[in-house]
């Protein structure tokens, strides 16, 4: 893996081209060379940028001003500016066809659909203010919007082509928390607030296919993920378990537990251990040179395989705080459906990798610091993990490796994002980013 220079950013979107913005300037770079291709200036500080689906346009949202500005990659002179005015702006996103922008106004009063093709504007009333209120199908045909009227939750399904309402139905939820389409675009999962464990599965035509509830009183769902084949729905909950539903019967096929002690002999446990820095025999000079200082203070680490049984670092949750750091808060399926990566928030330093073919725990990665983010390679079963240190950790069935971001100072990776080709990875710290290029193994 090779790295590029570190650049200062305030926000970044990396799907096709790394576009970064600094304050009110939008910088578009080339993916492989990271040379600046375009430079745009926006009116105000940009909070959010998003590429359109065909990578022709990029929108920059400025929430404070309630403005959205759209830039074209092909025609740098082309510009578009959408002003929500006093309605305010809390969220903005592209429609799947790349020609409409959906703005969510303040207080979630409405969602305005602006068309770049025509002058028409559509309004969606009573959108729900929840974590995942708007969901597009993978093929971009349909959009599901969570709504709330008169203290009751509803879901509306729109046809993206002409923004016509297809279905509108109520859900049996107390307080709808999120909706997500299955990758096949035929099933919509809707789940309730964490006070109620409830998952509802709706068909595209609005029929309730199934309802699943694991238990009644304790805190419920924390995270949900569909498998890429739409075969499984993984539900991570506050009771430190992941329940997997199958798409045929919508019944639970297994429960994945996250105990603090690993006893299964088949599980491989990788533990990150620090290597003590090797000091050269040369005498330490004063004041110490920069290189020396960095080498002294930057720690090396590597993975060690631990013998089962292994006891993991368990944090007892504080009972009287809201949104406790308990339960499975992160879930992700690998692109080939073979693995599921989870994080149990009261064992914050560990990543659990489950083998979906055997429904057994395959690997546990125990890091030195708590996990910030992990993401699967979009092409192969490779997981990238970051813990807030200057190292990125990669796991694949072949093994795992620690990759240190070279450079001066500490680059604390808080987030990462894969390029859609799987060749490079974006690493983000608080105000910098860097790109990590991965060498492709030659297949002989």
């Amino acid at each position, binding site marked *: 893996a090779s790295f590029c220079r570190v650049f200062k950013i305030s926000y970044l979107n990396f799907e096709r081209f790394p576009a970064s913005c600094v304050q009110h300037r939008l910088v578009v770079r080339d993916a492989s060379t990271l040379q600046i291709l375009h430079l745009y200036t926006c009116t105000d500080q940009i909070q959010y940028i998003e590429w359109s*689906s*065909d990578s022709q*346009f990029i929108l920059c949202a400025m929430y404070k001003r309630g403005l959205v500005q759209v830039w*074209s990659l092909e025609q740098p*002179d*082309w*510009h*578009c*500016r*959408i*002003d*929500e*005015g*006093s*309605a305010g702006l809390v969220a903005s996103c592209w429609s799947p*066809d*790349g*020609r409409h922008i959906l703005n969510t*106004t303040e*207080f*979630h*009063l*409405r969602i305005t659909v*602006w*068309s*770049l*093709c*025509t*002058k*028409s*504007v559509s309004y969606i009333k009573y959108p729900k203010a929840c974590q995942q209120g708007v969901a597009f199908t993978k093929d971009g*045909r*349909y959009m599901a919007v969570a709504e709330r009227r*008169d*203290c009751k939750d509803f879901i509306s399904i729109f*046809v993206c*082509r*002409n923004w*016509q309402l*297809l279905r509108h139905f109520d859900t049996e939820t*107390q307080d709808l928390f999120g909706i997500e389409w299955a990758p*096949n*675009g*035929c099933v919509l999962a809707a789940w309730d607030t964490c*006070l109620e464990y409830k998952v509802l599965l709706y*068909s*595209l*035509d609005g029929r309730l296919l199934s309802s699943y509830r694991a238990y009644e*009183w304790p805190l419920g769902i924390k995270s949900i993920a569909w498998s890429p084949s739409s075969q499984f729905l993984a539900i991570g909950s506050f009771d430190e378990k992941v329940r997997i539903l199958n*798409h*045929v019967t919508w019944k639970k096929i297994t429960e994945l537990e996250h105990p603090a002690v690993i006893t299964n002999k088949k599980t491989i446990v990788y533990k990150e251990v620090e290597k003590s820095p090797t000091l050269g025999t040369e005498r330490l000079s004063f004041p110490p040179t920069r290189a020396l200082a960095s080498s002294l203070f930057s720690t090396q680490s590597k993975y060690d395989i631990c013998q089962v049984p292994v006891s993991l670092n368990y944090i007892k949750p504080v009972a009287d705080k809201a949104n406790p750091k308990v339960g499975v808060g992160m879930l992700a399926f690998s692109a080939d459906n073979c693995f599921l990566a989870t994080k149990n928030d009261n064992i914050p330093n560990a990543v659990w990798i489950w083998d979906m073919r055997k429904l057994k725990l395959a690997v546990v990665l125990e890091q030195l610091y708590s996990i910030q983010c992990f993401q699967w390679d979009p092409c192969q079963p490779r997981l990238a993990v970051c813990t807030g240190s200057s190292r990125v950790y990669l796991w694949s069935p072949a093994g795992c490796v620690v990759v240190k971001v070279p450079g001066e100072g500490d680059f604390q990776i808080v987030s990462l994002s894969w390029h859609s080709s799987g060749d490079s990875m974006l690493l983000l710290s608080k105000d910098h980013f860097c790109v990590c290029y991965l060498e492709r193994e030659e297949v002989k």
Partner: protein
Amino acid sequence: MGDWRTVTVPLLSSDSKNIFPYTSERKSPASMSSEVLRLSLPSAKSMHSFFSAFCTEENIEQSISYIDRELTTMGFPSIYVESKGKELDLVSMVNCMNELLVLQHKNLRAQEEIEIQHLKLGSDMDHLQNCYTKLKVQKLQNVISSRATQYNHDMKRKEREYNKLKERLHQLVMNKKDKKLAMEVLNYVGRADGKRGAWRTDKTEARNEEEMYKVLLSDYEQRQKQLLLENTELKKVLQQMKKDIISLLPPQKQKPKERSEDGPVLSDQEEDIGELNKENMWELSCETVREQLTNSIRKQWRMLKNHVEKLDNQVSRGHSGALNEKDVISREDHELETGKLELEIQQCKEMIRTQQQLLQQQLTCDDDTTLLLQDCYLLEERERLQEEWRLFREQKRNFEKERKSFTEAAIRLGLERKAFEEDRGAWLKHQFLSMTADCKSENSTTPSAFLRSADTDLRLVRSASQQKRPPSVLSTTASPEPCQISQYITQNSVASEKPAADYLPNLWVGSDGKEETEECTKTWEDSGLDTLCRNLHMEQLP
């Protein structure tokens, strides 16, 4: 007396040389009795040594006095004859011992009861604790649910308020109507797919629906295809497995006792194979086919499992017995042999059974036939007899008829003879007369003479017969007279009945009324003939 602490008795060993330290400290008798309970009863073996260890040949006196002291302290009477003497009062000692035994029994029973009670109390406690925790949980749940409902209610209220605010705000925002254009575009962009935007009409709505359903249908179809593929794959695998299992199982080397289970199964196997192979062609997935396949696989699998287990046992036996290769093989052979022998035995038994059956059948068959035959014979004879009887009767009838005709003929003959005799007599008379009269008329007709001679004969006979006996006068007419004649002749021939009777064949056995008359007529006929002959003879004489 003071307090006495009981002797602590440690676990005794069989070593008789142990000398146990006795610490007899003072303690109240009440507590002593409770502490007695805690003494662990020594085992039988150690008892002996315990007893021998306490009192030996040397310290008899001391031990006795010690015992006496202890007993008196416990409230038992002294075992000495007098309070100070050295003579032992056996009676009182025995009594004390008995008392001690009774006490021991009582204490043991009490202990048992206490233990039982203790257990009961323990279980009751557990139960109560469980109930208590359950109740607690329920109570907490009730509390939570009540709080939750209250919370929901409050939340709803707040939400309604919030919605009102939002509405108000929205109205204000909308009313404000920003003068500047909300959207500023340099030029409108073409659609991604290059097509023009369409108006919203009913048609488009219908098309949307249609498309939606198409999407759903295609998804379902795809899934179904996948499931079908999976099913066929699995079925193939199961078939293959089944074949493999069947091939693995030893087909012939099966013990006769297992034959009962495997026999029908084998035939089932063949059946199943045949059936399922056929079914495969159709790739049906109906309930029965599925069940058949899974059932047959299960059966086969069980058989294979049993077989493998048997093999394992054999191997383990071989290992544990430390037998060498030869023995193992010979055992197998032995088992084969025993199998064969058992087979043979069974076959022989079957043969014997069948033979027995056949034999029995035969025996029962002979008796029957003989009886039948006997019956047949009897019947035959009977029939023959009946036939003969019939014949006899027929003959008899014929004879009767003949006899009748004979008698009639005889009567006629008799009559004719009479007539002739009479004629002859008459003729002779006439002759005589004529002779005397010097035969003047010689032309007296000879033919009539004959007739007349018959008449005369008859008269002659009559007269002749009259001479013999005083008979009834017979008339000249033949026809009304035959019975009279017969009477006459019978009278005459009474004497000659017997020889006349002998004349006839002796076929007559029975006697009827008819027969009597017939007999009479017969005898008459006979005698009649005879007398007639004699009479004729007599007549001819002169």
